[in-house]
């Protein structure tokens, strides 16, 4: 009786998610075996041809490389920067709340829109970044939007601007959760500041930082908005999995082939998602333990 009532509370949500999440997932697999096109019309079964194309496609391998490179670099820089900022912001001072709130704003902003704006800042000709660099004495400032070595870096830079605050926020929580008396004990034990950092601060923050990195990584693997805004979907040095999917499905109008690509992407994402959900569950139970 009680249980039936409990199910009544959760079933609308579960149904909703099954219809609009699970069903598309399954149909994605089905679509992957067809040659259907964006413009509709007739389609036929093509067996595993789409899938074999995905695996033989150098574009796909390149997109995987770009996506992974982007994710690793962006998350690492964000983590380091966020943690350093958290160390600086950890102690109380006047106006801390205000400045912290200010620092956190970029992560709440719409990436698609801010990407367009950053594109404006990056412009080699009239962009303010290069104007400042030029005024600062750099005669040939870097070409953020056209130099193949810098294009991905430009996307990383905007991602870092947007998401370092996220790492800052989580790092602050990590630092705040370390009991003060551990630092006192270490002081009594004559540990140097470096040893305190290496043996106490870092390892005790590690679980939260790991969680933060995982959460960001799942986001970064989906990177789409910024790349679309800064270089467009069809640039060899910035094509990520998501923009490749866009290219195949919308520009090339090959829905069936795109679905096959999507399936392969999904396998990767689901593997990662499982890791993240596990980590979150661990965090939740660890926190519950602390509360008791």
């Amino acid at each position: 009786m009680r249980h039936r009532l409990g199910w009544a509370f959760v079933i609308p949500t579960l149904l909703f998610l099954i219809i609009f999440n699970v069903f598309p997932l399954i149909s994605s697999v089905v679509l992957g075996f067809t040659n259907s096109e964006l413009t509709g019309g007739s389609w036929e079964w093509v067996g595993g041809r789409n899938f074999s194309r995905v695996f033989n496609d150098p574009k796909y391998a390149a997109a995987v490389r770009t996506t992974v490179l982007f994710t690793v670099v962006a998350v690492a820089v964000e983590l380091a920067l966020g943690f350093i900022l958290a160390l600086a912001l950890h102690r109380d001072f006047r106006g801390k709340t205000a400045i912290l709130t200010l620092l956190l704003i970029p992560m709440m902003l719409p990436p698609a829109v801010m990407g367009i704006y950053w594109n404006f800042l990056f412009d080699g000709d009239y962009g303010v970044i290069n104007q400042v660099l030029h005024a600062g004495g750099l005669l040939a400032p870097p070409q953020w939007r056209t130099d193949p070595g810098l294009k991905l870096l430009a996307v990383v830079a905007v991602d870092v601007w947007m998401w370092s605050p996220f790492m800052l926020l989580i790092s602050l929580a990590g630092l705040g959760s370390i009991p003060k008396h551990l630092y006192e004990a270490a002081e009594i034990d004559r540990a140097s500041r470096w040893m305190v950092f290496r043996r106490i601060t870092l390892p005790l923050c590690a679980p939260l930082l790991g969680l933060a990195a995982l959460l960001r990584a799942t986001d970064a693997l989906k990177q789409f908005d910024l790349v679309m805004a800064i270089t467009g979907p069809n640039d060899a040095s910035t094509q990520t999995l998501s923009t490749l999917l866009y290219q195949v499905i919308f520009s090339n109008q090959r829905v069936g082939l795109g679905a096959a690509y999507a399936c392969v992407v999904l396998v990767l994402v689901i593997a990662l998602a499982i890791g993240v959900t596990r980590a979150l569950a661990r965090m939740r139970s660890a926190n519950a333990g602390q509360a008791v």
Partner: protein
Amino acid sequence: MTFLALNAVAKTYADGTIAVHGVDLAVDEGEFVVLLGPSGCGKTTTLRMVAGLERATGGSIQLAGKIVTDLPPSQRDVGFVFQFYALYPHLTVRDNLAFPLEAVGVPWRERAVRVNEVAAAVGVTELLSALPRQLSGGDQQRVSLARALIRRPRLWLMDEPLGTLDAAVRASLGAFIHEQQRRHRVTTLFVTHDQEEAMQLADRVVVMEAGRIRQVGTPTAIHDAPRSRFVAHFVGSPGMNFIPATRTAQGLCLADGRHLMIHNAASTDVLGPVIVGVRPQWLQVSTDESEKVGLVATVVLDEYQGDHRLLHADAEGLRLVARIPATQRHALGARVILVPHAEGIRLFDPHSGAAL
């Protein structure tokens, strides 16, 4: 020989609250000194100033002949045992014990040897590979003690190390600390709010109240010769009974005309109002209505304690506690006469509370 000297050590916090008002204290080498007092009396702050975890805002601290007032904890050669253990939660017991050695650069091999030594001494050898959260509270405090021991500091500082443990563990661990201290002859400053613990462990007890030292002395002296009403009440369980009286040539006279005590000899002491202090064990309970000396009171509560009883009685608004043999029974509401033993009577000034 004085090993630790506190000279007018004071602490005023940034917000103006004064935690410690100029404390003077001299501790001899190898001595076990307990700082005793109610919470908020400044005893922990004093201890933390000795450790260097808190900066003294006045006075000076001398340790082994050296002024250490402004030195960081790492340069004072002290061991500190925290109330909440302060074990590093992500390190095993072994790594926790090795931590202070690692910090001062003791080579790896020697670390292992010393960790094993100290673990054996403290009795945590089987726990070396465990993480702190897998241990009981008592074991955690044992490890914490071992960690304070391992570097062989010349001064042990303990901040209510037994405060969070349950009674049985508390007693055995208390004895253990005592034994370790005696064996290593480490000078020890120990903070507690539990007067029994203080009596049990201390060579000397320092009673503190409101940021000041009220009395320093051996446990016996503190118990038997309290120098103030505060000390008299705080030490002993339950604390001393206080009865307002007037001292006349005949003895101690109560408001209702009865006497608490009749002098047999002429006294040259100052006469006038006093506060009479009597510990519960020095109060005899009599049902003999003809008794001329003593307070008339009504029994309000009888607490059975196993080997004795604590009889609470009300004498016209004055609540008194007497310790009586377990066999002696009194009905609630019964009229009794509480007769103090002459030997147990202490007199205090009604205004300053100082012993007379």
